């Protein structure tokens, strides 16, 4: 197929591969892992057909993949990779290194349970566990959003010089076929010009990266990463507006679905948003003022926007498809922290819903919403099954 304006059926993985192709990366180091492998497969096919001028390398593990990504990126070229679950776990050390090196790598991560025991189910613990690594994180709900977010991610990464991770739930997004509009290359090129970093490791200049620094230099460097993160909500909002202008599609950093006048708002991220939309529709039909807030940008958490969106709401129900033993649901904890001390903050109820991929039908969400309305919130998230 060729890109154009007609919708074609693509899985989330293939849509992400299309996004990567349209971004014209030069180096793609990647190691196969279920359920990410179709991304690697399609990129290889594009390359074999001469449609992707990238060097695809398959190092001996994900740790080596990220090492190759960092070095290639610091060498001044656009770099893409993809992984899932255990692969992301193995990269952990180098995820910190990548943001420290200010390498604008873009990586898709297919959210899958982490061992042990073994499982192949959708669960976001793998990526929320990387929240302190200095990577910007998006969570997408659909294949189209996956494609568009890859392009936006490069634009953001290269502006703020931080790496970006795009997360899509295993199977629900990665393997489901959906109609997707693949933008023409010219449109992608207009949106994302060739990568021409102001500064890169140029052999002609003989510079190096990664030396031991003083305490003073170290903290300044960390503070600068913080400054770059602080700029992300604005830069990401601009990237989304510009994409909306060119393609007609915008996704927002936090999407408000039927939130007008809502006294109860369901807040979640990833594929669960699709189910929550259904639940909200059912609740609205039954005469309840319910809405959905979809957190698309999770790192940095757009706290100011969340506070604005939740002003005047009585109850918020957070659905976490992740579990941090000893802390509960990560999104629940983060939202509570973001709202703490604000005047007239909503009551925050947390549910560990969908951990390990268990199905959470709309009726379950409606039931949890009903319970949230009628009971005092607990400090901890509760298991919902």
């Amino acid at each position, binding site marked *: 197929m060729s890109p154009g304006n007609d919708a074609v059926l693509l899985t989330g993985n293939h849509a992400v591969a299309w996004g990567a192709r349209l971004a014209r990366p030069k180096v793609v180091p990647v*190691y*196969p892992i279920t359920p990410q*492998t179709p991304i690697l497969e399609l990129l290889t096919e594009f390359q074999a057909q001469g449609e992707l001028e990238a060097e695809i390398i*398959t190092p*001996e*593990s994900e740790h080596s993949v990220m090492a190759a990504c960092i070095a290639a990126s610091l060498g001044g070229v656009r770099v893409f990779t993809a992984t899932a679950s*255990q692969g992301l776990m193995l990269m952990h050390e180098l995820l910190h290194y990548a943001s420290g090196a200010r390498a604008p790598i873009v990586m898709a991560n297919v959210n899958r349970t982490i061992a042990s025991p*073994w499982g192949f189910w959708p669960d976001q613990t793998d990526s929320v566990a990387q929240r302190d690594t200095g990577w910007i994180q998006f969570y997408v709900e659909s294949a189209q959003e996956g494609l568009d977010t890859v392009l936006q991610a490069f634009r953001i990464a290269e502006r703020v010089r931080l790496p970006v991770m795009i997360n899509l739930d295993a199977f629900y997004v990665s393997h489901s076929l959906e109609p997707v509009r693949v933008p023409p290359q010219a449109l992608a090129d207009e949106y994302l010009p060739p990568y021409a970093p102001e500064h890169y490791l140029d052999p002609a200049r003989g510079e190096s990266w990664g030396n031991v620094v003083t305490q003073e230099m170290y903290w300044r460097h960390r503070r600068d990463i913080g400054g770059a993160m602080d700029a992300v909500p604005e830069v990401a909002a601009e990237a989304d507006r510009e994409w909306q202008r060119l393609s007609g599609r915008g996704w927002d950093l936090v999407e408000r679905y039927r939130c007008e006048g809502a006294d109860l708002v369901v807040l979640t991220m990833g594929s669960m948003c699709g189910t929550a939309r259904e639940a909200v529709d059912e609740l609205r039909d039954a005469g309840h003022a319910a809405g959905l807030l979809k957190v698309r940008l999770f790192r940095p958490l757009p706290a100011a926007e969340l506070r604005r969106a939740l002003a005047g709401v009585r109850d918020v129900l957070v659905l976490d498809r992740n579990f941090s033993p000893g802390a509960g649901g990560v999104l629940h904890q983060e939202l509570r922290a973001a709202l703490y001390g604000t005047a007239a903050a909503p009551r925050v109820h947390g549910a560990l819903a969908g951990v390990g991929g268990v199905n959470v039908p709309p009726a379950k969400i409606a039931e949890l919403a009903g319970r949230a309305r009628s009971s005092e919130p607990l400090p901890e998230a509760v298991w919902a099954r």
Partner: protein
Amino acid sequence: MSTASAAAITPQSFKSGVKPVWCPGCGDYSVLSSITKALAALGLAPENAAIVSGIGCSSRIPAYTSCYGFHGVHGRALPAATGLKIARPDLTVIVAGGDGDGYSIGGNHFLHACRRNVDLTYVVMDNHVYGMTKGQPSPTTEPDWDSKLAPGGTGLREFHPLVIALASGANFIARAFSGDPNGTADLIAQAVRHPGFSFIEVLSPCVTYRPEQRGWKDAVRPASVAVTDDPARAARRLMTDDGFNLGVLYAGRRAPYRAAPQHEPQSPASLELDFAL
């Protein structure tokens, strides 16, 4: 070592009853059966042995046996097995996995397991492909193997596991073929008996992604030269080997790793005493 009478123990005693999910015709079925035959021939009971694996189709083996099993993370079977053997030297520890698990992501551990020479038996089901993730080239894949995922081949030289094992200090090196389950069982039993780190490469076809490997049955042959304990002779032999000579190719005399003296493992009776109120 054994606690059960040899008469009561058969290969069947080592099967868990869990039905393997391998593709019909996969070589790993025979390797599973060879491992159970070898354990029975050694006169062990299931509780005397542990099977440790990483991740891959081949690494599913522990669940299919009734021995102690540990299905770890991708590439890390050898360090896990080393920990186990040092903690419980009385157990016979077999490490099982694939060429991707053992030579790619776990390649570093392979070198150090050979060098450390802990008394383990490492069975690698080599199918020259990552089977579980659907057919990517592995380190032992031929450079010109053309596939959708590596159009025209990788162009990369193969990894030579037996040569590397020898150079790194493995004490026993053999090659087996899954199509000869009795021969493979015999080699596994010899490997277990041999002290130190024993390495067996089992040619085990992946009929789904490498269907041409069905032809291996016509390519394999018993090695024509007798086993040697001389590393220099073994090196010459392995460097000129075409990958299809079966049998023990090296049996060395390095002293195995010795753990510091251990305390007696606690008996269930003494554990119960600890919990008595």
